[in-house]
């Protein structure tokens, strides 16, 4: 090979390397974007298939209380009152409130559950045990940690407690399976006891106070026995 050809060959190689260096990050971004879009569309499709939110036009619009995170303290739950058309059937009603909880608050910072999570199925057994089956996103996309996992479970349990008095216990499944923990910390092997006492209409005048005036609930000071595991049958 003459020196001239060697120069051309080296030059060509350098151009190829530079082109690859420029193109590679672009390609990687495209692949990531495509993967994300695919994931989103799968999630969307799953939502459409699994969540026909049963809204009956005849359902009365009632004030319901949902529990999302506090915008000032990320380990605290605050009750938020919203008006929803809710079925009288406890299973449909549970699905309606949980889907609203999953859809999230106006302020995304107050979310307690990942937006990708989907309620796949919900059952209510005759003894008052609710079985809520969520998609894997609940376990894989929730911030890992005792506080964040406890907050997520408490938000589900408190929302059911406040709106569906028939629910006495809550068992959480992930994609139809019993999991040992939610995301490495919180125990999911047992049902959580839901304090039905708080689901009764509050007798005190304080019940009419704005939602923000209600006492905040933290994972560490959940009143009653909420979200406390109970004995296995």
């Amino acid at each position: 090979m003459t020196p001239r050809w060697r120069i051309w060959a080296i030059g060509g190689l350098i151009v190829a390397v530079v082109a690859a260096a420029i193109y590679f990050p672009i390609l990687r971004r495209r692949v990531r974007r495509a993967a994300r879009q695919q994931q989103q569309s799968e999630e969307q499709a799953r939502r459409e298939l699994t969540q026909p939110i049963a809204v009956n036009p005849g359902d009365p619009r009632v004030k319901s209380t949902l529990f999302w995170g506090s915008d000032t303290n990320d380990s605290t739950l605050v009750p938020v009152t919203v008006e929803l058309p809710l079925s009288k059937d406890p299973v449909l009603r549970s699905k309606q409130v949980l889907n609203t909880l999953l859809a999230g608050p106006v302020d995304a910072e107050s979310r307690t559950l990942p937006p990708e999570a989907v309620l796949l199925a919900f059952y209510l057994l005759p003894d008052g045990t609710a079985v809520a089956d969520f998609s894997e996103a609940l376990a894989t996309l929730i911030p890992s940690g005792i506080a964040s996992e406890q907050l997520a479970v408490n938000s589900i349990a408190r929302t059911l407690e406040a709106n569906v008095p028939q629910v006495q216990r809550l068992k959480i499944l992930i994609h139809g399976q019993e999991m040992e923990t939610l995301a490495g910390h919180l125990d999911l092997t047992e049902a959580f006891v839901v304090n039905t006492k708080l689901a009764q209409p509050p007798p005190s005048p304080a019940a009419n106070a704005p939602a923000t005036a209600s006492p905040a609930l933290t994972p560490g000071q959940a009143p009653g026995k909420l979200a406390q595991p109970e004995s296995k049958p």
Partner: protein
Amino acid sequence: MSLALIPSQAQQPVPSAAPLANPSAISPQVPQGGAAGSATSTFGAQQAGLNIVVLDPAHGGTDPGARGTGGIRESEIVLDFAIQVRRALEQEGFQVVQTRQGNEDPTFDDRSALANAQRGAVFVTLHISSTGLPGTARVYVNSDLPAAIGANGLIPWDRAQAPFLGLSKKLGELVQGLLAQRFKGSPDSVQTASVRQLRTTAAPAIAVEISSVTVNDRADLDRMAPGVADAIAHGVAAFKPSYVIPNTTGALP
């Protein structure tokens, strides 16, 4: 899991220190199968009273735990924290047994088994959270567990923590109080949560969770380690007089 805990071979809380239903009837002990990690054999050296701390750096192996955007992994940080906690505890005169010393991932039951095999031990599991005010620390004890004692006097492995909840809360309050003094913004009192690791542990057991992996610089977490170590060591030392195990003469496995 249906393993039962065998009587007369393990630590028992003093009834006055543990306001639980008939704690003397509960005689937990390690199940068969042994513990993973770097257990130190302690049976020969055991004396009455609290003298062993089982230290559990959570996660490990393929389970990194919480992950920060800057590449911080909970499993690595807690291992580094454990070194300092261990040193502080040894300075207080405690023997320390770690559930892991490298990048292994013992199961929850293996970690519990390591504590359940000891007499006169407390269990401390270390975590770093994904959320919470950075620079703060929380201590958790297990949520209330109904005591389930069989007619044969055994308690199920699944309920091993039940008779120790009173002592766990006492230990947790002591450690949380010291952490609150060192790290502003930390809660003043111990929290409760259904922590899987604690449920099967037959000893006073707490989880310490540091906030958080979201810090921009890992050094921010590293700077907390001496304070956390000091709080745990002094908390356990302050707890020691509250915890006395009976001088049983039964043979140990």
